[in-house]
């Protein structure tokens, strides 16, 4: 069939944003947590918890703002659990994170399946949420061909994600608490010796970061129109976010770029064949690639990024020096 070439490209760019914003929330959240020196592998589970509670409570109150707040709160509660276990009780961070993933997905399915049988809220019945999540064109910018609809005509949570990422960049690099936080992540002993409350910094920022992840989960719940069909809304985004942190070099602003680069490959699975049909001469080969390759592509790219960045020299790396190490004051 005759495809509208411009339309296909526009849809592709639009989709890159729509389907990958949860990655940005997850990545920025994880950066904040890691900057405090804690490696939290529970992103997937925390996003799932934020998704399910944000969705249900948001629906019952018919307010997207309450939904976002609830998702943040429940994400932060997971963060509190993580901090209590790793900061106060000195539990191994890797194991605790993995446990949180299992725990979070368990809660997600428990609540989801349990409620599904009795009273699952359908997003269509909640006009405020349905309308709140509708695309919002930025006047002027959205008139530009292709990138106008592609980048500047999205729901409010997309803009929120970018705003949060920029705000976190500013917070980490331009404010005193941000500086202190980085100090805690680099060398908690030194930070402690100059009077920074290491424990409090770790607690607060683990909760803040996990709260942001929770919002990412809520985004996905709304993007799926709240239809719960016993497969997970999060679908691996959490794991990819952990890797994107490294790709973004622990820089929340770079995470925006990372999300879109990664999203490009992620979205090829959806749009690849349309692109092939619209540009048979130049992109026709995209259609010849089996679906399974597209399915594996995001994870292959993730693996490549992990390998490439770990080979790279430490010079200029944003990796917090004490990442993954518990701080035990008496050992100082």
């Amino acid at each position, binding site marked *: 069939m005759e495809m509208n070439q411009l*339309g296909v490209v526009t849809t592709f760019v639009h989709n890159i944003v729509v*389907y990958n914003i949860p990655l940005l929330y997850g990545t920025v959240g994880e950066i904040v947590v890691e900057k405090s020196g804690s*490696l939290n592998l529970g992103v997937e589970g925390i996003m799932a918890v934020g998704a399910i509670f944000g969705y249900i409570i948001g629906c019952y109150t018919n307010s997207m703002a309450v939904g976002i707040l609830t998702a943040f709160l429940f994400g932060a509660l997971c963060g509190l659990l993580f901090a209590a276990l790793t900061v106060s009780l000195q539990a191994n961070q890797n194991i605790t994170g993995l446990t949180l993933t299992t725990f979070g997905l368990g809660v997600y399915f428990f609540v989801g399946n349990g409620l599904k049988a009795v009273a699952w809220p359908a997003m269509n019945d909640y006009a405020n949420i349905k309308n709140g999540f509708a695309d919002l064109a930025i006047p002027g910018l959205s008139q530009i061909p292709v990138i106008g609809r592609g980048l500047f005509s999205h729901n409010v949570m997309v803009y929120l994600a970018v705003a949060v990422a920029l705000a976190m960049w500013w917070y980490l690099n331009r404010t005193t608490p941000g500086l202190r936080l980085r100090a805690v992540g680099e060398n908690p002993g030194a930070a402690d010796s100059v009077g920074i409350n290491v424990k409090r910094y770790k607690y607060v920022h683990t909760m803040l970061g996990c709260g942001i992840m929770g919002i990412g989960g809520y985004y996905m719940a709304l993007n799926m129109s709240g*239809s719960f*069909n016993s497969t997970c809304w999060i679908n691996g985004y959490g794991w990819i976010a952990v890797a994107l942190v490294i790709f973004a070099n622990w820089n929340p602003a770079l995470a925006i770029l990372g999300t879109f680069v990664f999203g490009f490959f992620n979205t090829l699975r959806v749009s690849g064949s349309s692109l092939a049909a619209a540009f048979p001469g130049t992109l026709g080969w995209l259609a010849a690639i*089996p679906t399974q390759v597209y*399915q594996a592509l995001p*994870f292959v790219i993730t693996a490549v990024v992990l390998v490439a960045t770990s080979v790279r020299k430490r010079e200029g790396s944003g990796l917090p020096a004490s990442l993954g190490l518990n701080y035990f004051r008496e050992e100082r």
Partner: protein
Amino acid sequence: MKKILAMVMAMAMVLSLAACGGGDKSSASAGSAASAGSAGSAASASTADAAEFKVGAIYINSKNDTAGYTFAHHNGITTAMKELGMDPATQLVIVDEVPEDKEQVLAAIDTLVGEGANIIFGISFGYIDAMAEAAEEYTDVVFSHATGYMSNDTNFNNYFGRAYQARYLAGIAAGLKSLETGNNNIGYVAAYGTEYAETCSGINGFALGVQSVNPDAKVYVKKLGAWGDEVNESAFAKELIDSYNCGVISQHCDSAQPQIAAQDAGVFGCGYNSDMTPDAPNAHLTAAIWNWNVYYHTAIEAAMNCGDASNFVTAMGGGAYYGGLKEGFVDVSPLNEATVAAGTQDAIDQVKELIVSGDWDVFTGVKLHITVADGAATVEKADEALVDNTGAEIVAAGGPSVEDGVITGSMNYYVEGVEEA
């Protein structure tokens, strides 16, 4: 060191996700299966029999699921048992979440036989070898395998349904809608395409139904490569609507996401497995659905009344049960009056009558031409060859139906008017 370890762990997680991204639901890629009429329903069982009879079931997912493949079967078995006056709480024994691994299936069978099961249903395709083997070992127990192709002459059969007939009816609803909207592009979000006869025959049945009312319509198939993948089910439907300008979205996948996407975009859709009108009241037309309890009722009744397990296959009239519209095993859900085009009900009723009475079937050298005027449909038969989308002839004009074995096991071509998107 810990950092490297953490990175390695994250990477391992990521890779393991990629490895199991293939989908969690098992379904059919059946081999050759001979047709079998439904068993003549035997005299109803005596209450003493019904109270002692035990049904065993092996599920691929959890028996507590509230939607999806396992749920549909569990619901079918319990419904059938209640119809037969049995109590599922005491007379149904289940081993669930059994992967398609021969050893584990054999262990599940041992458990069920140990608990006194008289008939054992296995719902997933990959249970096939274990069930065939166990049927030889436990000759006093009936084994019945969904979506498979193996059987013996005594106590082991397989069962599946003519979903393509229901698809054809749904295709009529979609075709009439496309005439009404004037948009000839119809999208189809499919788990797989020509890789599995199950999906392939469904797509073809649907497309032929569409063409019976709108010969100019094209069906664009977008393959997921997985039986269940909610995120992409939604994304693929949106892509078909946005880039391919599709006005009706059909589906062969687990969730109602394609229908919800259609509703959000202001277009229409045909669901699958269950009535999806509640999910998308402004978009959904009708869905091709399964009534598994129809088979389970027939099979449990036959097993109770055939005396010895070795008579089961004879009582069922053969080793392969392949029910369709006639048996009520497959059907379309009640039409959504708010969305369907005028005359849809009449057209579907007439075609259903043709299929149920055995006058006509989908994959034959006879095509139906349906016209609707003033809400009343006229159905005409015409001898026309069944042609695939490369132009090769499958059935000559006026020729008989494609064999059941092909429909269930080896159909691997799209009919004319179907394209992969």
